[in-house]
């Protein structure tokens, strides 16, 4: 800011600098581009812009050339000189660096024609790939802070709340509480000294989830503007953004954005000369999963131990320092400016009867197109997994999808045509959650998945209440026993009983939802538990303690000529046989580590 007027360039190179692409060396690509552009004398014609996450993380590092919307992927520093000469100098887009769908013979040059992007509807991610998150002018050019002006000059606080209610927006953090109602409750709540607070929950902690992180990294002003509008609606003058310290890029970019907004007078005293005061402070969380729970988060902001407390009173009544407090998650805040700008009715026209608008999901696991997607509510799992996600790698069979992280559940392949909204996911035993979507294929053991998620929640349980502290531990013990082949059928009954007790009796959302992965896998994949218990077998061969490794002597001798690699790699000296002979495994010594299976180049080691 404060620099001379921005120059007109004929080409903008939009280099993705989300966390995924940065880990793939996007900044090296950027440097190489700048160097080459200079070498070719293009520095007055071509501008390199770093943007937030483009979404198609699987294919990073990414770059989009504008105008033209030409999508380049899996770039390396070595590709850059050729790309600059061909595309930027001579105007010939480089086909070999474009995305080619596996089933097609020709690449798809234009971003909007790629299947991954086609079915997406961008509301919360409306500025995706179009702005530099570290430049407020870029946000302003894309109608940024226009909704704020409207909210400050043309609407009363009641009208703002009404508009949010009309939109049908519900909390994007997982539970789906109606946002407009929450705002109204906080507005009506009586504060002893008139002070009310606003909080942005950025304590995203589900394994495999990176929606909120990406929004804060890619478009921090959308969250700030949403909070400004919320503050006006509920009558708050102070706000907090609680973000994990292990999201360094998000912390850095939101701090830059706050400074810029303050400099322009969009935060602080007498905003835009309207007499409205509001400012935001960033609070860095230490990475405790339980701090995503609102009462624990508030305790953490106050400087106390991040532990939940019973509700009521809800934060809307008694929140930060006992004052009425409105807590919404990052994605919820990012939706607010668009709703005010385009109207609640417009927002409500997207989605289903009870779930309006769009939802951002991070699509991960056994899926071809890993990435960040925003889709209208009501889209089916099939569309997300096959049309957008490109299906399962290696032609494997789709088995289940885990939504809602450790609080959610596993939805089986039979329900692939399930429309995604708050209610249908809850009915299926899972939940919307903040939007993590972990895809699993036939090689996934569902008992092991339940064990993994429970080990996570057990680890993250704060220990304040007994059902969660002891219950998750007891459940984890049972699950571990089953995966080791030591489970009994009585264990299943006990497991279910424990799960229901923990769900009923825990103090906060962490404990109340921790049994969901266990309950859904029991509901949809009970036969897998039974196989583990009765037959002492893991159908997916994941639970290694249940595996029996043998060597096919014929294959070993004929194909591998007794190559001896397995014997040399076996740490427990369980493999017998000399070089040139067929090898075999001494089952009494085998510790089932699976190394022989992994190192055999001839497929002679069999697992049952």
């Amino acid at each position, binding site marked *: 800011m404060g620099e001379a007027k921005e120059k007109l360039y004929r080409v903008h190179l939009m280099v993705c600098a989300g966390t995924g692409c940065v880990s793939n060396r996007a900044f090296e690509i950027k440097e190489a581009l700048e160097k080459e552009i200079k070498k070719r004398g293009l520095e*007055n014609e071509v501008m390199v812009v770093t943007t937030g996450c483009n979404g198609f993380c699987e294919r990073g590092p990414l770059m989009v050339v504008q*105008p033209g919307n030409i999508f380049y992927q899996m770039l390396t520093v070595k590709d850059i000189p050729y790309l600059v000469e061909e595309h930027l100098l001579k105007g010939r887009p480089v*086909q070999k660096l474009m995305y080619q769908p596996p089933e097609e013979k020709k690449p798809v040059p234009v971003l909007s024609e790629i299947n991954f992007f086609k079915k997406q509807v961008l509301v919360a991610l409306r500025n995706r790939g179009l702005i530099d998150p570290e430049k407020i002018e*870029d946000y302003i050019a894309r109608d940024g802070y226009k909704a704020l002006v409207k909210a400050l000059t043309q609407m009363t606080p009641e009208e703002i709340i009404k508009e949010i209610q009309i939109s049908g927006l519900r909390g994007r953090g997982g539970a789906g509480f109606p946002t407009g109602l929450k705002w109204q409750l906080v507005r009506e709540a009586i504060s002893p000294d008139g002070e009310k607070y606003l909080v942005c929950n950025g304590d995203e902690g589900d394994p495999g989830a990176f929606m909120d992180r990406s929004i804060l990294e890619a478009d921090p002003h959308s969250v700030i503007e949403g909070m400004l509008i919320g503050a006006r609606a509920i009558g708050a003058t102070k706000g907090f953004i609680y973000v994990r310290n292990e999201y360094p890029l998000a912390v850095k970019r939101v701090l830059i954005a706050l400074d810029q907004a303050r400099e*322009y007078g969009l935060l602080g005293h007498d905003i*835009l000369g309207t007499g409205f005061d509001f400012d935001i402070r960033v609070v860095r969380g230490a990475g405790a999963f339980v701090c995503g729970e609102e009462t624990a988060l508030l305790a953490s902001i106050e400087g106390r131990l991040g532990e939940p407390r019973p509700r009521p009173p809800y934060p809307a009544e008694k929140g930060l320092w006992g004052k009425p407090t409105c807590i919404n998650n990052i994605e919820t805040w990012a939706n607010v400016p668009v709703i005010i700008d385009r109207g609640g009715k417009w927002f409500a026209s997207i989605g289903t009867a009870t779930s309006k608008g769009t939802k951002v999901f991070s699509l991960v696991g056994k899926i071809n197109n890993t990435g960040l997607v925003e889709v209208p509510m009501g889209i089916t799992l099939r569309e997300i997994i096959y049309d957008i996600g490109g299906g399962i790698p290696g032609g494997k069979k789709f088995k289940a999808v885990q939504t809602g992280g450790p609080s959610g559940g596993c939805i089986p392949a039979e329900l692939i045509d399930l429309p995604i909204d708050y209610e249908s996911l809850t009915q299926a035993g899972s939940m919307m959650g903040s939007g993590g979507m972990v895809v699993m294929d036939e090689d996934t053991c569902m008992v092991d998945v339940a064990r993994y998620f429970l080990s996570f929640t057990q680890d993250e349980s704060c220990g304040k209440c007994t059902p969660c502290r002891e219950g998750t531990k007891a459940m984890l013990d049972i699950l571990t026993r089953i995966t080791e082949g030591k489970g009994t059928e009585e264990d299943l009954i006990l497991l279910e009983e424990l799960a229901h007790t923990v769900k009923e009796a825990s103090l906060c959302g962490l404990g109340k939802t921790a049994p969901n992965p266990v309950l859904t896998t029991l509901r949809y994949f009970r036969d897998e538990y039974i196989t583990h218990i009765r037959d002492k077998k893991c159908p997916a061969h994941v639970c290694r303690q249940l595996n029996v490794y043998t060597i096919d002597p014929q294959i070993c001798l004929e194909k591998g000529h007794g190559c001896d690699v397995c014997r040399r790699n076996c740490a427990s000296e369980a493999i017998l046989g000399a070089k040139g002979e067929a090898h075999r495994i001494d089952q009494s010594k085998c510790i089932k580590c699976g190394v022989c299976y992994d190192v055999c180049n001839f497929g002679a080691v069999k697992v049952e």
Partner: protein
Amino acid sequence: MPKLTIEELEKLREEARKTTFIREQSEFRAKINVHMGTCGLAAGARNILNAFLREIEKRGLTDVLLTTSGCAGLCSREPMATIEIVGQAPVKYVDLTEKKAQEIFEKHILGGEIVTAYALGIGSEKTDL
């Protein structure tokens, strides 16, 4: 940077849009394509390109698309540019100089009048993939 008033914010938005508009895939009223093959570059296509760019910048236009392409095949008449007012047939201009480029910009792009003195003919080679 002083604190903004609402009017100043709107002004800032307009200013910012003058440079970021090309990121959006909006419709363009006119397209200028400068041929930048080796022959074009040797003949000075670079200066022609920059002349067009500065004309657009000077006027703050957001509806004129400036692109490049490879050799158009008539190397002896470079630098060349193809100009198309959307909805009309493209026109190829040859033997360009910066001065001619300015004149073409004013007459053809802004005025809608083909500068026949510098034009080779109507039509364009296929540049799509």
